């Protein structure tokens, strides 16, 4: 059974910005579905269409069996939404925050009391019910935030960048909750993230989204296996100047026709070389390059990651874009130039 099914879902913002561009995908009951992409790829816009906060420009989706255009009110009852911003009221206590949402989700007083007790234990906040949220740490706030989307035991929950801005320890903590929600309690989870490890670790299936389009979809293993073999990353120099580009071009031409090289792909001042067996290819590459008088600053051999999947389809890495506020327009300009 599918919990989400979109057809040609599209959102165009003023200025003809196609934030989400005719995407089709399906989320099955009980799975964790990851939406992976860099900032500005269209992840949040997709969530906001599916949870009825904004209307699509064209296309539609069926969420928990109801059409987002025809039955938004029913869908709101069936889903939980945890936004990227922690939407908790700092002046209220944890219990007050949760109770308010219990009322919004049409639970009666006794059920709310019962659920509040259970949920505080579930998210490990027992004992903090009557403390003001202003005294909570960042991780506690996020857990309360998630709890507020769970109070009515929804069949589907949307998590928009659930661990953004959290320290690594809290992040693994939150990962455990999300995993338990799906695998123990049977909640279907739609999760967006720009962290590859998060998608890799949590999601049963992943859709990789860039510039509003889904560029690849499958289980993490399927996606990585499609790359094949190992990845050798060559870094010529510290700075990404003209000389580096020259180095990358030369290296590419040296390696291009060698039988053990599957593919080469320059990215952000590095060169990714895809080979069948990394361990034996690495010394070969070093030897070939030394013969041409090319010096390598560093070299690393690894299994393909989801970032390599992203790199393969877009020519960019998600990693390089973390922290930089790349706007849609900038990326589009870059792409058009290419």
């Amino acid at each position, binding site marked *: 059974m599918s919990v989400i099914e979109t057809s040609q879902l599209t959102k165009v913002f003023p200025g003809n910005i196609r934030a989400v561009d005719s995407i089709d995908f399906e989320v099955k009951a009980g799975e964790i579905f990851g939406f992976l992409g860099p900032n500005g790829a269209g992840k949040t816009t997709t969530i906001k269409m599916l949870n009825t906060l904004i209307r699509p420009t064209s296309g539609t989706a069926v969420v928990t069996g109801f059409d987002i255009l025809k039955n938004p009110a029913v869908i709101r009852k069936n889903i939980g939404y945890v936004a990227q911003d922690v939407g908790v*009221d700092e002046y209220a206590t944890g219990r007050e925050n949760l109770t308010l949402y219990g009322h919004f989700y049409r639970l009666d007083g006794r059920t709310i009391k019962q659920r509040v007790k259970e949920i505080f234990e579930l998210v490990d906040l027992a004992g903090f019910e009557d403390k003001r949220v202003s005294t909570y740490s960042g991780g506690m706030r996020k857990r309360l935030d998630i709890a*507020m989307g769970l109070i009515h035991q929804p069949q589907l929950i949307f998590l928009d960048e659930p661990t953004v801005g959290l320290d690594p320890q809290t992040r693994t903590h939150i990962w455990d909750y999300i995993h338990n929600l799906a695998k123990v309690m049977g909640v279907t989870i739609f999760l967006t993230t720009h962290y590859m490890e998060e998608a890799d670790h949590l999601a049963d299936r992943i859709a990789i989204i860039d510039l509003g389009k889904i560029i690849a979809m499958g289980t993490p293993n399927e996606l990585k296996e499609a790359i094949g073999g190992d990845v050798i990353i060559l870094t010529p120099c510290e700075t990404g100047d003209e000389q580096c580009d020259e180095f990358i071009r030369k290296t590419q031409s040296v390696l291009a026709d060698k039988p053990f090289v599957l593919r080469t792909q320059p990215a952000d001042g590095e060169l990714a070389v895809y080979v069948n067996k990394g361990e034996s290819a690495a010394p070969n590459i070093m030897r070939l390059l030394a013969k041409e008088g090319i010096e390598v600053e560093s070299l690393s051999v690894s299994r393909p990651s989801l970032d390599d999947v992203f790199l393969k389809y877009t020519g960019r890495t998600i990693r390089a874009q973390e922290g930089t506020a790349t706007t849609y327009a900038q990326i589009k300009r870059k792409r058009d130039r290419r």
Partner: protein
Amino acid sequence: MYLLNDIRVQVIRHLKTLFRIRVWIFISLVQPIIWLVLFTQVFDSLGQSFAIIPGLEGVSYLQFFAPGVVVMTVLFGSAWAGMGMLQDIDMGILSKMLATPVTRASIITSRVLASMVMLVIQALIIFTIAVIMGVDIVTGVPGVLFSIVIICLLGLGFAAFSNGLALLFRRPEPLMGVINFIALPTVFMSSTMMPGGPDGFLPGWLDTVRQFNPVDYAVVGVRDLVLSGYIWSDLWRAILILAAWATAGIVFGTLMFRAKAE
């Protein structure tokens, strides 16, 4: 009825928030007292000139200004009501709420109603202090209750407009600008501080302008009830005009909510 329950739980949330900000409570209570004491000291000598105005013979400036302080407090209090909405937008609370089945109308209604509750409390405190300072309210307790109806209609309009502007701007700076731009001039363009009418102290053009100012209708109504009694021609006009004002505010707020929140 989900609507009523949604309004109830949110009004409680807003009031709790306000009561937990101690500085806010302190300032809201002290401010009107400062108005009352400071202004009546500054303008005390003005009271002697009231003798020439029919209906104000023998009225001190304190007696004249006390109804004005009630209305000013309502005006300033409700004009800032949108700041709470801004906070909810900014913290992501509003969009999170909109993804729940909560009745849409309850979100803005509860904010406006919470403002009303605070204004009524403030107004009652000012009336009490005024009485202690020697103001004689000729219509007594029923008159005070009537005054509450009048100022609630005024506050309703301002609070709804303020919330609508918060949704329109989504930033504090323009909202603060508009409120600062409007609040004091509307006081001066009314008979809050100076008597109006043919025998009053306002220049002719201002006396014309104040007829388009909802604040003036509230001041005139409340002042009648405090100083003169039930002058129905004034009171009916105040109720009708202010009801229209409140309706306009609610329509504006609702339209902004529909356009900007969803």
